């Protein structure tokens, strides 16, 4: 069994991840953030299975990804790959924080995949996130951050 009302939990997970990893404050539930479409953005996703099956996805502007690296390492990213890597790690951490909150049972026995980068060359990807009912929006350093948690079904 999982708690299906995930919106608040998703933004809590994002807040804790960014505050702890990078000392970055999060303005939660900022639907207007979705309207600020970035020139370039990055996305990463983790699939999970167990008490529920689904996908946890994080998308943010590349400029914010660079700030994330800067805050974690106290120096700028060495290359663009490290910026994309930071978003993958953020998705991994957010998913790791979120799943125990979703589980009603005492012991969450989720399995998760390795975090993967997603193709962000197409603006339509951002638009789909913006339209998604399961997407939560937050604002970080003035930039929009989307966290999408799609629960596809209850597991065993």
């Amino acid at each position, binding site marked *: 069994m999982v708690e299906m009302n995930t919106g608040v939990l998703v933004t809590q997970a994002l807040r804790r991840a960014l505050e702890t990893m990078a000392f970055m404050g999060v303005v939660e539930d900022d639907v207007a953030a979705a309207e600020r479409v970035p020139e370039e953005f990055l996305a990463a996703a983790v699939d999970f299975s167990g008490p529920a099956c689904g996908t946890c996805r994080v998308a943010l502007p590349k400029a914010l990804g660079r700030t994330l690296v800067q805050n974690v*390492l106290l120096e700028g990213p060495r290359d663009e790959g490290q910026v994309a*890597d930071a978003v993958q790690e953020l998705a991994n951490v957010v998913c790791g*924080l979120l799943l125990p909150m979703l589980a009603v049972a005492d012991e969450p026995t989720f399995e998760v995949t390795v975090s993967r980068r997603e193709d962000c060359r197409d603006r339509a990807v951002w638009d789909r996130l913006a339209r998604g009912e399961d997407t939560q929006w937050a604002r970080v350093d003035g930039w929009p951050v989307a966290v999408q948690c799609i629960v596809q079904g209850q597991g065993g």
Partner: protein
Amino acid sequence: MARTILVVDDSTLTRAAIHHMVEMLELDVGEILEAANGREALAVLADRPVDLILADLHMPDMDGCELVHRLKTEPAYAAIPVVVISAECNPGRLERLRAEGVVDFLHKPFTPEAFRATLEQNVEWCRG
């Protein structure tokens, strides 16, 4: 005696962050080696003696669970302390890893203070 630490994580960001934190602790560490997965870690270990392993769990190619199993069943590596640093949320898996010989877990995201405390509690030469 300067020690050698091996950091095993597929995230370059996390490897770099741990590198910084180890430097901040001012431990007697001569070298910090890095590997992106379990297979790379075993290749490093075949070539270099290591005093402490900090390993993620979810990695491509060979994950941290397989790495720990290989380490703890290989006499040459079994005594090397392993601290798992992961976003893992499955308590059963963590218990199995502890039973295999992992000394402690540090959950991502973590602060420099938590990192310091975990090393100091579990690795004698990390105590100030």
